[in-house]
């Protein structure tokens, strides 16, 4: 189990007050807070080691190159990737997905082919495929979600066919929290001869993820959702695929030899890392991975399951609240999205903020999904390693207080 009280001591921001109240941070699916270990790594790098990587013979350049590659190796072990060069640094999940779209998909999608995704994707795993399939005269198909917020795997088996080139699916929905039966989906994709790309933005931070066990071809996630800095993300890909793919961006570092006429691409992973990379944030991502590894991802997942179970129970005590997605915490990540019958999410968000409670309101970058529930906006509480049951109580008490406020205000 996690020692949440000692974990909280590592997060300086949790000591601050918001609008006069202690911060209750429940917007972790958007981005997580950073522990001092990560912040210290960033400061240390700039104060002690800063130099460009892969370029110099001088000590600092060697040190920063070592730290940068060591961070890659940490990520590799964290997701059990076979080799370090299967881990590409990007800016975020969105860029990782775009990399696959612009290189692999552009080279492999043909007219009449199809890409299969799901009805519960984040915009960043919808829009690139809309554009790419349109350009290639290919079809984009959506695996539907049932009334409990779970993927309809029977439909998936029908949608994935011999013309499917790619299955692009989220591992955990950022709105419903639903966990995709990813092994099952991988088998369906592979038996149809397709490759599978997993949007792991909401899974790698919250549960053990083993890319070899899943047997996926691509997997994308962002460091900022797992204690790391913003501006750095990861694309895992099977090295054979990366070898065969054209580069994503051209420039320095991604070449091995340049003449006036032509250029030869560098080895993996550098072929996909044009220009000076985000060195400091990559190294700090290594520190975030260390932090999570020390806790143990099974423990992280179990803690979130307990908080989510408690939150689902407590929040449904509020009569006017409707919760979207599975009501069984073992089927979902630490995300609880809901609407209140009488209070618009936006008004609720503003009022809770007065109490120091940070939740997300709006379409959660998943407009088609949110609209399929007959609403244009929802409220979302999402949890992480430092959240407590007491904070869930504060949220529920807060909602009740906002209810009372709107019932009485104006009726004075």
């Amino acid at each position, binding site marked *: 189990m996690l020692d949440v009280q000692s974990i909280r001591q590592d997060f300086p921001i949790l000591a601050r007050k918001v*609008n*006069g*109240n202690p911060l209750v941070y429940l917007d972790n699916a958007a981005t997580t807070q950073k522990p001092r270990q990560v912040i210290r790594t960033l400061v240390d790098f700039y104060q002690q080691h800063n130099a460009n990587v892969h370029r110099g013979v001088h000590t600092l350049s060697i040190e920063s190159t070592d730290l940068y590659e060591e961070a890659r190796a940490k990520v590799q072990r964290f997701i059990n990737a076979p080799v370090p060069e299967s881990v590409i640094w990007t800016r975020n999940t969105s860029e990782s997905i775009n990399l696959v779209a612009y290189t692999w998909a552009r080279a492999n999608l043909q007219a009449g082919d199809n890409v299969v995704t799901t009805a519960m994707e984040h915009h960043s795993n919808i829009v690139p495929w809309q554009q790419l399939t349109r350009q290639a005269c290919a079809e984009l198909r959506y695996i539907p979600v049932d009334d409990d917020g779970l993927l309809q795997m029977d439909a998936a088996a029908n949608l994935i066919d011999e013309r499917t080139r790619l299955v692009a699916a989220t591992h955990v929905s950022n709105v419903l929290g639903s966990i995709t039966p990813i092994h099952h989906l991988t088998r369906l994709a592979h038996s149809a001869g397709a490759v599978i790309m997993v949007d792991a933005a909401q899974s790698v931070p919250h549960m053990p993820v083993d890319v070899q066990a899943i047997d996926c071809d691509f997997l994308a996630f962002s460091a900022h959702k797992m204690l790391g800095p913003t501006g750095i993300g990861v694309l895992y890909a099977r090295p054979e695929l990366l070898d065969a793919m054209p580069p994503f961006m051209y420039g320095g570092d991604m070449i091995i030899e340049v003449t006036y006429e032509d250029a030869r691409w560098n080895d993996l992973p550098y072929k996909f890392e044009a220009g000076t990379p985000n060195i400091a944030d990559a190294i700090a991502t290594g520190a975030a991975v260390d932090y999570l590894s020390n806790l143990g991802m099974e423990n992280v997942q179990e803690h979130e399951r307990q908080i989510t179970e408690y939150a689902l129970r407590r929040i449904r005590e509020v009569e006017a609240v409707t919760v979207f997605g599975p009501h069984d915490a073992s089927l979902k990540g630490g995300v609880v999205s809901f609407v209140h019958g009488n209070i*618009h*999410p*936006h*008004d609720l968000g*503003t*009022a809770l903020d*007065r*109490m120091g409670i940070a939740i997300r*309101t*709006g*379409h959660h970058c998943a*407009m088609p999904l*949110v609209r399929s529930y007959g*609403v*244009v*906006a929802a409220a979302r509480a999402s949890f992480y390693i430092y959240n407590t049951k007491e904070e869930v109580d*504060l949220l529920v*008490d*807060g909602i009740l*207080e*906002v209810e009372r*406020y*709107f019932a009485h*205000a*104006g009726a*004075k």
Partner: protein
Amino acid sequence: MRALSELDELYEEIILDHYRNPRNNRELDAPDLEIEADNPFCGDEIKIQLKFEDDRAAGVSVAGRGCAISQSSASLLAELSQGRTREEMKNSVTLVRRMMRGEELSDSELDDLGDLEALRGVRKYPVRIKCALLSWVALEDMLDDYPAARQQVSER
């Protein structure tokens, strides 16, 4: 936990009254002008219809769904626009914008805004200004496109 009374500035009584009991939200029969607008980021939607007689708004309908700020602002718009000319309506759009920017308005300008002054508290909540302005920006767009919009409605 500090009480929510600080919110009274944002949710004045008039605002909540208009939110709960929106005015003029019944659709018009044969509007001269009609526009739909939304703010997908917060999920506010609004539809405005206008009917003119002798260059004055004889019928105004505003309906939609969304937060208390966007919907009450729209209802206030409907109330205020009744009987006004296009120029007068455009003038109130400018006044509402100026109020949201935090500019001081003269007494006669405040008179012109009437109950809308209740929206003043929104300017302390910058992310909510969009909500308050949604219907006003739509009204402005509709009036600016006047001939085109009018034709569109009559061609249906």
